[in-house]
């Protein structure tokens, strides 16, 4: 692989020039750090991951070419680093400590929530969430929120974070992730359904029953 200095890496050379555009790189680095810190809350680890991703991108520039955008490519390297990190470190409440309900996958959860005719099961009807006074100020709440986010299938949480944390527009996400809009709608629906269920079981209901 190291010997692959073939003739066909002109794309790579052009992209390599981007590494020397200080303004562009600093802007990109800040965006990457923001993205990383959303998922790895230890800022040093997040910055390390960004640093490694940039170095890795620089070293592998000849592999970049046909992809749509330089930024997308660098972010995909970062995402893999973050996923590795998240796998390695067990943080906050482990997903296994959460109520059973949260571990059902999308389809199963839908069957639990709704009757055959598509109306809410009586026991699963949404409850009123008391906030913000009980929620956003409270560290424990955010640990539950993190745990619920972590309990989502990886794909769900990544797409949910892209949409809700990074506030990316759906066409951009679909383009980056090679998804159809209806696919994304279904995944976001299921992610929200599970997150909602998990928060209600582990926070809002738990608070009420205290």
């Amino acid at each position, binding site marked *: 692989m190291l010997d692959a200095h073939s003739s066909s890496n002109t794309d790579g050379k052009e992209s390599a020039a981007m590494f020397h555009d200080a303004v562009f790189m600093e802007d990109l680095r800040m965006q990457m750090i923001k993205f990383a*810190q*959303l998922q790895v809350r230890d800022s040093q680890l997040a910055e390390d991951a960004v640093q490694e991703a940039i170095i890795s991108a620089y070293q592998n520039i000849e592999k970049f070419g046909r992809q749509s955008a330089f930024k997308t490519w660098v972010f995909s390297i970062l995402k893999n680093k973050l996923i590795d990190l998240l796998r390695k470190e067990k943080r906050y409440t482990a997903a296994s400590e959460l109520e059973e309900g949260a571990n059902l996958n999308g389809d199963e959860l839908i069957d639990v929530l709704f009757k055959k005719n598509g*109306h809410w099961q009586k026991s699963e*009807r949404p409850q*009123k969430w008391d906030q913000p006074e009980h929620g956003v100020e409270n560290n424990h709440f955010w640990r539950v*929120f993190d745990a619920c986010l972590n309990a989502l299938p990886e794909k769900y949480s990544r797409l949910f974070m892209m949409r809700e944390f990074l506030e990316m527009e759906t066409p951009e996400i679909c383009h980056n992730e090679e998804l159809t*809009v209806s696919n994304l*709608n279904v995944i976001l629906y299921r992610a929200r359904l599970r997150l*909602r269920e998990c928060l209600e079981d582990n926070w809002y209901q738990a608070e009420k029953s205290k």
Partner: protein
Amino acid sequence: MMNCKRATELLSEKLDRPLSTKEKVALGIHTTMCVSCRLFSQQMQGLRDLSKFYVKGNGEETNNDEKK
């Protein structure tokens, strides 16, 4: 009439795409009559607000300057 499952799908999609007039009308009729879906709707907005807060609050926690 639209059932709750379909209503909740639209209440999620509403956050990601503009609904058609037809969808809006059907959803409006449903949520007027259905307390559960009305609460669900508030919770969907709640998740969005919480996410915004999560990102904002995240910056304040990052004072781990000691190990370098």
